[in-house]
């Protein structure tokens, strides 16, 4: 998938096509990521891509991404991501995956370098700590 292309939209009727100027929002789920933004762009072991949301405001990310807490939001453009030969695939109306990033266990140099490059093109647009109310 690391071909710099936009991924196939599985349901064109429900999910719009992403364009190079579209903004993607990456939730900063650790406070330390505000100081060390590249850490927000490393894949977890159970991930195949980085979760991002689009067509939503920073304060809506916590719900779109179904997070318990976040410490801020970073913004980057689709074109900036595909310019790194990564793929952006929208899989829900407000959710997409950045794919093509290797796990650090597989290819540490590439994973770390891409994390740096994604951090370089990203801007922290929200530094508010937000929590979702618990069900009870």
């Amino acid at each position, binding site marked *: 998938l690391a071909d710099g292309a936009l991924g196939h939209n599985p349901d064109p009727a429900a999910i719009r096509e992403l364009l190079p100027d579209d903004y993607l929002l990456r939730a900063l*789920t*650790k*406070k*330390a*990521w505000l*100081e*060390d933004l*590249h*850490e927000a762009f*490393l894949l*977890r*072991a*159970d991930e195949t891509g980085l979760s991002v949301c689009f067509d939503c405001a920073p304060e809506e990310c916590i719900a779109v991404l179904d997070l318990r*807490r976040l*410490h801020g939001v970073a913004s980057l453009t689709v074109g900036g991501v595909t310019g790194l030969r990564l793929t952006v695939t929208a899989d829900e109306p407000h959710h997409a995956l950045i794919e093509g990033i290797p796990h*650090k*266990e597989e290819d*540490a*140099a590439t994973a*770390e*370098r891409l994390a*740096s490059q994604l951090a370089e093109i990203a801007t922290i647009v929200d530094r508010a700590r937000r929590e979702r109310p618990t069900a009870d």
Partner: protein
Amino acid sequence: MRQVFFHTRPAHGYVEPSVSETASVVAEIDALLANKEDEIVPTMYAFTRARGLVEAAYGEVDRLRVIRKQFGVPAIFPKPIATTDDRGGIRVSWRAENKQVRANFGADAQLRSYVYFESPLAHGVEPLDAEHLAGRFAWLTER
């Protein structure tokens, strides 16, 4: 050619002197074990390696500082940031202007541990041991 450890321009994010630097990095790593908010508690394997190896590398920095102080050069070192990965490994990073060094301590012996370095001119991965880490500290702070 011997590389020296100093940075002549104090800036935000730098700490001094060396005793507080070592205490600072150890405190950062220890805080992870104390169930720091948002962080997975590191494995004892990662914690023990991170603490021991970073202290050893800082010790090497201090040793070279003794040499440096003979020439009256001020000593300043970048403040580290420590975090955990999703498996309980530890990551510690240092930044000085446009250079970065990241130490990745795998959660166990089967997971990768490495030093990553990056500048506008080069980037790469090296084995994670005190020698390589101290060498990258020298690279990070060289003029």
